[in-house]
Each structure stands twice: as C-alpha cells, then as structure tokens.
C-alpha cells in the first residue's frame, strides 16, 4: 500500500474485540459480513499477508457495552462461540457487534419489544445467521421459550424500573448455572430522584436477592453520564 501502513490493529483483552489506531482511534470488531455496514458505522480494512480483513468501528457513545469495554471492564463474558441472550436489542446496532464477537459458532438471541425498532433488528438478523430476533416483551419469557436454548450470558440494556426483575426472570428460565449476567443501568430510568450511586447499590442488592452474585460494577464516564454496568454470576458454584 502506498504511504506505508495506515492503521494498526491491536487485539483487545476481550477476545473478538480490537482497537484500531491510525487516523482513527477506535474500538472495532471484525466484520462478519464484509462490505456491509449496519448503521452507517465506519469500516476499516486492513491487509495482512495478502488477506483483507474488514473491521467495523463500535461507537462507545452509542453502545453501553462498548463504553464498558473501553472503561476497562474485567470480563464481558461474550467470546467467540458463546450463546448470548440480549435483552433490549433496539435496532440491533450493538447486537451486530455482539454477533461479530461470538462469530459463526455462537448465537445471539435478541429480544426487543418495540415493533418499530424490531423491524430494523430483523433486517440485521437477515444478513447474520447467528442472530435470532425475538419481538416480544422480555417480562414474559414464557412467550418465547420455544425459540430459546440455554445461554451462557445475558446482556440487558432495557432501561426499565423493574430491570432487575426482568433479568432475573430470564435468568431463571434460560441461563445456565454459573452463567453470567451483564446489565447496563441508567440511574435516571430506575429512580430519577435518588443519587445514581444509591440506585446502583439498590440494583445490585436486587440482583443478589435473585441469586445473581455481583462481581464488578463500572460507571461509564466519559461516554455516558450516570450509567453503570454490573457484571454478575448466576447460581455460582460454591468456592472450594
């Protein structure tokens, strides 16, 4: 290529995630469907040993999961080959990146209640065989139980006051023992009058009462204000 290398790709701590440093300064995932973008994000192609690899920029200002990764979360529990239940999939922007990470061997069950954004989600799923779109209320897991298998991880970004209950319901139904839960909490959506710190602590306590043991909690500055991501383990095996 003329003018030397344009971009350096650095593998990230979390498998399937990379960091592109060049003119850009971006978190990226390897594009599963080269040549196509989902929501007009930037594509970065790199040629290595005559093989062209395409990456897609993952905007942490729009995706809580990306913000958590750049914020230094220890584990996202989403890796190549894992099965993920994604609650609150919206238009499928973050879901597309999760599908990039889990790769062809993994599965993403994407649950979204709104028909409007569900339409976009279905369009994303058409191109990506590892996404199973479910347009249903996450409060009623029995409505989509026939579509689901057991999952390794639940990621939830539902922004509802009863978020913890929704996650717990789904965990009781579909999450394997020792599986993990990653929840993004928007303090304003749970209780707009209380201090964000108090809201996060409250949610963590709710999770504890539902057999989800918290492992870490991370706020999302500078990408989001008063947001936190909590990672927990469901029915953890006792420590030896």
């Amino acid at each position, binding site marked *: 290529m003329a003018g030397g290398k344009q971009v350096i790709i650095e593998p990230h701590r979390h498998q399937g995630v990379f960091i592109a440093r060049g003119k850009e300064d971006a978190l990226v995932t390897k594009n599963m469907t080269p040549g196509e973008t989902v929501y007009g994000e930037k594509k970065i192609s790199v040629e290595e040993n005559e093989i062209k690899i395409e990456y897609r920029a993952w905007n942490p200002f729009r995706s809580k999961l990306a913000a958590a990764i750049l914020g230094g979360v220890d584990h996202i529990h989403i890796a190549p080959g894992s099965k993920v239940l994604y609650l609150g999939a919206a238009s499928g922007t973050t879901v597309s990146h999760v599908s990039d990470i889990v790769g062809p061997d993994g599965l993403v069950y994407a649950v979204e209640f709104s028909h409007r954004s569900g339409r976009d989600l279905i369009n994303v799923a058409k191109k990506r065989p590892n996404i199973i779109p479910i347009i249903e209320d996450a409060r009623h897991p029995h409505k989509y139980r026939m579509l689901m298998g057991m999952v390794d991880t639940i990621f939830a970004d539902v922004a509802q006051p009863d978020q913890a209950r929704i996650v717990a319901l789904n965990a009781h139904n579909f999450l394997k023992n020792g599986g993990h839960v990653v929840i993004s909490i928007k303090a304003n959506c749970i209780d707009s009058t209380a201090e964000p710190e108090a809201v996060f602590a409250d949610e963590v306590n709710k999770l504890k009462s539902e057999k989800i043991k918290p492992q870490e909690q991370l706020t999302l500055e*500078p990408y989001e204000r008063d947001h936190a991501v909590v990672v927990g383990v469901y029915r953890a095996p006792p420590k030896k």
Partner: protein
Amino acid sequence: MSSWKKVSKAKSKQHRERSQLESRKWLGPLEKKKDYKKRAQEQHRKDATIKYLRRKAENRNPDEYYFNMVKTRKVDGQHQAKESEEPEFTDTQVKIMESQDINYVNLMRSKELKKIEKLKSSLHVIDSSQEPQNKHIIFVDSKKEAKNFDAAQHFDTHPSLMKRVYNRPTSKMLAQQDLAKNIDDRSLNKMSAQREQQYKELSKRIGREKELRIISEKMEISRHLLDKSSKRKKISDGTKDQAPQYRWCFHRKR
C-alpha cells in the same frame, strides 16, 4: 540647420533642477512654482468658501422657517435627522425575518451536530495518559480478601498496564505478543499527527455547536419577547453562555 542646433545644444550648459539644500532639509522638499500654485489655489478656494458662508450668515432672515428645524435634533452638539415615526417594518415582517435568522442558525447547528457525530464514530477518546474518569468496583467475598486485593493479579495483567483502562492485555497475551510489528517511526508519527488533527477538529466543532445553540436560544427568547400581549417576568439575565430566562403568565388555550 538642425545639425547646428544639435551641436549648440550639446555645447550649452546643462541647467539641472535645484533640490533642497542639505542645511534646509528639515523644511521638506523644495517647493516649486507648480506646488505653490496648487497650494495657493486651495487657499483661495477656502477663503472664498468662508467669505460666502459669512455673507450668507449676515443675510440670514431670523424669522425664516426651515423644515430641518423639525426634522433634526441635536445629539452631542451635532444635528442629526430624527428617526421617522413610521416604523420601517411591520410586526409580522419582523417576525418573519427573525424566524428566518433562527432557521439559519438551527440549520448550521444541525450540520455541525452531524459532523460531530461522524467524527465521534471513529474517535473514541482512547487515551492512556489520562487518569481514568470512571469508577470501577470489584466485589469480593470477605474482608480478608478485600484487604489482600491485588488489582493487577485480579485483572491478570502487568501492574504497569493498570492505568491503561481501554485495553489491559492478559498475561497470556503479553507473553505471546510480538511487539516488533515492523512499523516504522515515520508512518507512526504520521498517524498520530493525523489523529491529533482529527481530535482538534472535533473539539473545535463541539465548541462551535455550543455557541450556535446559545445564539439560537437567545434568538428564540427575543422572538417570544416581540409578543407584547402576554405578561412575563424576567427570572435571570442572559450571560455569555445562557439566554435570558423569563416566566410567562399561563394562558388557558381554548
């Protein structure tokens, strides 16, 4: 006889133009007849004008009526035309003009916002030199565990990488990574310069967008103030980064 004339000219003494003497240099260049003429004509013109005006003042009729007596007024000793009573624009015209201005500002603002969004999509403020801005809590089982907590060990990375929140490679990755990835310094410098440039552009655009937002808010308020029919109360004055705030009386709409 023209050849004769030429010869006599060549033999005659040359008269060169006189210049100012060195000793009188401070008086400026030496004045010549044509310079004098110019100066004298100007002086005569001025004298004539003064004479004419003096005559005019002497012949003035103190009882005469001039329209300028009512059309002008004195401001700081100077006569100025009074503003006409008739407004130049009707209220609706003013409203339309103002709304057009607001529309333009809003258009520029939305353009700016789009550009910011585009830049932000590939500039993710990844910087390891800065202190992390967020708060990370690790939950452990007992107090003893909390006391003996070693962050680098927990994250399975090198202690020097703890500040580098955006990516802390695991020890396994560090062991097998080939750091010398044949990247020459020149292209590395070029890349970082380009990145710097992009960040600079982003911060400038963010600043501009903020200014535009404030302008648009101020214009919006001033447009509302044109409507004199409803009562309002000023809550706070406008500052350089805030529009003035008013509270309007509530009117029930039927």
